[in-house]
C-alpha cells in the first residue's frame, strides 16, 4: 500500500503552478490587498478613536450581538425537532422535508426576508421579532445538517440503556443525547452566530426603520454618509468580535470532544401507530413553518387592496409616467442587470474556482493552503468584501470603481469557495490507478492528467456554474456596496420595492422575490442533478 501511495502519478509541478497562478493572483488582488488596505488606511487614524467613542457604535454592537444570540438560541431550540425527526426515522416524505429545509437555506436573504414580511401580521412585520423569525427560518437547515449528521450515528442502544435505568424519553434526551450532541451543537451555534451576526439582507428587509447591525451600519456609513473610514473601523471591530467568538468556540470544542463509538447510520422505519402519528405531526408542522411564508409571498405578489391582480407581474416597467421618470422600479432593467452580472460572475468564479480545484486536487499540503485561502471570503462578510474593493480601487492607476466588472468580481469572490467545494471532492475521488494505467500506456504525467482528470472535471464544473450563478443572482451585501445607480440587481430592486409604501409596489416586490426564488431553486436542483448523475 505504502509503495503504491508513494508512486501515485501526479501532474508535473509546472502544470500545478500554472493552474494555481490565476486563482492566487485573483485572491491576492481582489481579496488580500483590499483587506490589507482596509486595515492600513484605518488603523492608527483618528477614525478608530472617533468610532469607538461614538455612542451609536456601542448601541449597534450591542444590538447586533444580542439579536445574534437570540436568533442562534431560537434556531437551535426549534431546529432540534426536525433534526431529531430526520436523524432517527425513515419515512416516505423524508427527502421532501430535508429538501425543502435545504432549499430555504440556499434562497437569497432578500427572498427569505420578503417571505417573512409577507406572512407576519402588520403589528410585528417590521421588528426585531421579524428579524429573529427570518433568521430561524433561514438557518434551521444548518441545525438539521450539522446536528443531524452526529445524531443519526449515536448508537440507539445508549438510549435503550438509559431507558432500562429508568430514564423516560425526555430525561434520556436531557442526560444522554444532549450532552453527546454538544460538539455538533457548538459547531452549529458558531456557524449560525456568524451568519446572524453578519446578517444584512434580512435586517434591511424586515428590520424596523433605523434598525442597524454592524453590517447595516457599515453600508450606511460608506454609501449614505460617505464616512468610509468609520465604516472600515466597524468592519475591523466585527472581524475582531467574530474572531474572538470563533476562537472561544474552538477552545470549548476541544474540551467537549468525546471519543464516541459511532454507529453506522440506521434510521428506524416507522412501526407503531403512535410513531406514525408523531412523525406525521412533526413533519407536517415543519413543512408548514417553512412553506407557509413562501406561499404567502407568492400570494402577496397577486394581491391588491381590491382583490386579486396580475399587476405585480405585468407592470414590469415600474409605472413609467414620462420617459425616464417612474413611480416604481424598472423590473425589466433589474432582471437584465442581474442576468448580465450573474453571467460574468459565474464565468469569473468558474475560471478561478475551477483552476484552483484542479491545482488543489493535484497536490497535498500546498493545495490545502490554497483551499483555505479561497475559503476565507466566506468568513469575511460580503459587505466587508465590497467595502474593501471600494476603498482599494478608488485612485489611479486602479480607479476601477466605475468599471462594470467590479460588481461581478465581488459576487464571484463570494461564490468561489462554493465552486471549489463542488469540484474538489469529485477530483479527489478519481482512482490514482487510472493515472498509472495511462502512464503504462505511454502517456507522460501531463498527458495522463489531461486524458484522465480533465474529462472528469466537466460535470462538476457545470454543477459549480449553477451554484455560482444562484449565489451571484441572490448576492446582496457586496452588490449593495459596489452597485452604482442604474445598475440595480434583482435583490436590490426587491429591497427597494418592499421598503416602500403602496400596494402595487409591494406586489411588484413580491413578484420579483418569487421570480428570484424560482430561478435559484431551479439552478440549485439542476446543479444537484448534474452532480448526482
Amino acid at each position: 500500500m505504502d509503495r503504491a501511495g508513494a508512486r501515485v502519478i501526479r501532474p508535473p509541478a509546472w502544470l500545478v503552478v500554472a493552474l494555481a497562478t490565476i486563482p492566487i493572483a485573483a485572491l491576492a488582488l481582489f481579496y488580500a490587498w483590499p483587506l490589507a488596505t482596509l486595515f492600513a488606511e484605518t488603523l492608527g487614524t483618528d477614525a478608530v478613536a472617533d468610532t469607538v467613542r461614538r455612542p451609536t457604535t456601542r448601541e449597534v454592537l450591542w444590538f447586533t450581538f444580542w439579536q445574534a444570540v437570540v436568533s442562534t438560541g431560537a434556531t437551535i431550540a426549534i431546529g432540534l425537532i426536525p433534526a431529531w425527526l430526520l436523524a432517527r426515522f425513515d419515512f416516505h416524505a423524508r427527502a421532501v422535508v430535508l429538501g425543502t429545509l435545504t432549499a430555504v437555506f440556499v434562497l437569497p436573504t432578500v427572498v427569505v426576508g420578503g417571505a417573512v414580511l409577507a406572512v407576519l401580521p402588520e403589528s410585528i412585520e417590521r421588528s426585531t421579532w421579524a428579524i429573529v423569525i427570518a433568521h430561524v427560518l433561514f438557518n434551521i437547515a444548518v441545525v438539521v445538517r450539522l446536528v443531524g449528521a452526529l445524531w443519526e450515528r449515536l448508537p440507539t442502544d445508549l438510549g435503550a440503556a438509559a431507558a432500562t435505568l429508568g430514564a423516560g424519553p425526555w430525561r434520556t434526551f436531557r442526560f444522554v443525547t444532549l450532552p453527546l450532541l454538544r460538539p455538533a451543537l457548538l459547531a452549529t451555534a458558531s456557524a449560525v452566530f456568524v451568519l446572524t451576526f453578519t446578517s444584512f439582507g434580512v435586517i434591511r428587509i424586515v428590520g424596523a426603520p433605523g434598525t442597524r447591525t454592524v453590517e447595516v451600519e457599515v453600508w450606511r456609513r460608506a454609501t449614505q454618509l460617505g464616512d468610509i473610514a468609520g465604516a472600515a473601523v466597524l468592519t475591523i471591530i466585527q472581524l475582531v468580535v467574530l474572531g474572538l467568538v470563533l476562537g472561544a468556540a474552538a477552545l470549548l470544542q476541544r474540551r467537549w470532544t468525546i471519543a464516541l463509538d459511532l454507529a453506522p447510520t440506521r434510521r428506524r422505519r416507522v412501526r407503531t401507530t403512535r410513531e406514525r402519528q408523531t412523525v406525521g405531526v412533526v413533519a407536517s408542522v415543519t413543512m408548514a413553518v417553512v412553506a407557509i411564508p413562501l406561499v404567502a409571498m407568492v400570494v402577496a405578489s397577486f394581491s391588491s387592496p381590491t382583490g386579486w391582480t396580475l399587476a405585480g407581474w405585468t407592470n414590469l416597467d415600474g409605472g413609467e409616467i414620462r420617459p425616464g421618470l417612474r413611480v416604481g422600479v424598472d423590473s425589466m432593467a433589474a432582471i437584465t442587470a442581474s442576468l448580465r452580472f450573474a453571467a460574468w460572475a459565474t464565468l469569473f468564479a468558474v475560471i478561478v474556482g475551477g483552476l484552483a480545484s484542479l491545482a488543489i486536487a493535484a497536490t497535498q499540503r500546498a493545495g490545502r493552503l490554497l483551499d483555505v485561502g479561497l475559503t476565507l471570503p466566506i468568513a469575511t462578510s460580503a459587505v466587508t468584501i465590497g467595502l474593501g474593493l471600494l476603498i482599494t480601487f478608488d485612485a489611479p492607476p486602479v480607479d476601477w470603481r466605475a468599471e462594470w466588472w467590479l460588481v461581478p468580481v465581488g459576487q464571484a469572490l463570494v461564490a468561489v469557495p462554493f465552486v471549489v467545494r463542488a469540484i474538489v471532492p469529485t477530483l479527489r475521488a478519481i482512482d490514482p490507478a487510472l493515472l498509472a494505467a495511462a502512464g503504462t500506456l505511454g502517456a507522460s504525467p501531463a498527458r495522463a492528467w489531461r486524458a484522465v482528470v480533465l474529462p472528469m472535471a466537466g460535470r462538476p464544473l457545470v454543477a459549480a456554474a449553477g451554484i455560482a450563478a444562484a449565489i451571484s443572482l441572490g448576492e446582496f451585501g457586496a452588490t449593495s456596496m459596489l452597485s452604482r445607480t442604474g445598475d440595480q440587481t434583482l435583490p436590490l430592486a426587491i429591497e427597494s420595492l418592499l421598503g416602500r409604501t403602496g400596494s402595487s409596489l409591494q406586489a411588484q416586490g413580491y413578484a420579483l422575490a418569487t421570480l428570484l426564488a424560482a430561478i435559484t431553486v431551479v439552478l440549485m436542483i439542476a446543479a444537484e442533478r448534474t452532480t448526482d448523475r
Partner: protein
Amino acid sequence: MTAAVTDGHAVRADEIVVRFGAQTVLDRATMHLAAGEVVALVGPSGTGKSTLLRVIAGIVSPDAGRVVIDGVDVTTSPTHRRGVGMVFQDNQLFPHRRVVDNVAFALQMRGVSKHERHSVASEWLGRVGLDGYGQRRVQGLSGGEAKRVALARSMAAAPKVVLLDEPLTGLDRDLHDRLATDLAALLRDTSTTALLVTHDHSEAATIADRTVALADLQSSS
C-alpha cells in the same frame, strides 16, 4: 393499569411473536423465571435470543404475546417503567459520564440525592472489584473493567430482573472465566432474578441455575 397476575413467577414472557418484515424472529416463544432464579438462554447466534431479552426489556415491542413482571402485565409499558436492568453486549456505558455517574444513573433517575447515590454507587463498584474507580473516565477502562461497570450500573437500583445479553462475549479466556465466576457469585449473593443470553454452554453452566434452549421455547420448532 392491568390485572395483576400472581403465580409466583418474577418474569413471564408468554407466546411472544416478533416479525421483522417477512421474517419471523420469535414464533410464540414462552419462558418463565421464578423469583431469585438465574436462567441461561442458549442457542446459536442470530436465532432471536437477544430479541426475546429486548422484548422483556421493552426495547422491542412484540407483534403478539404478553410480558408480565412481578405480577404486572407490562406488555405496553415503556422500558423505563418496567424496573429491569440490562447489560448490553457492548456495555453501552455513557461516554460523557465518569464511572461513578454511570453506576449512579438509575438512582439519579429515581431522584436519590447526589451524596447518597454516589455512596451506593461506590459500594457497588467495590462489590464488582473496582474500588477507587469512581472518578475514572469510561474511555480509559479495559474490556473487563468496562463490563464490571456495566454490571454494577444495571444492578445498582435493585431491578426486579437483570437481563444479560452475551455479557462475556469477546473477552479473553482467563478474564472470561474469572468474570463468569464473579458474576455467578454476585447474582446469588444478591438473590437477583436474572436471564442470561449466551451461545456458550459452559458459561451458562457456571452462571445459571437452569439452562434452556431457545428452540425448546417456540411452538413451531
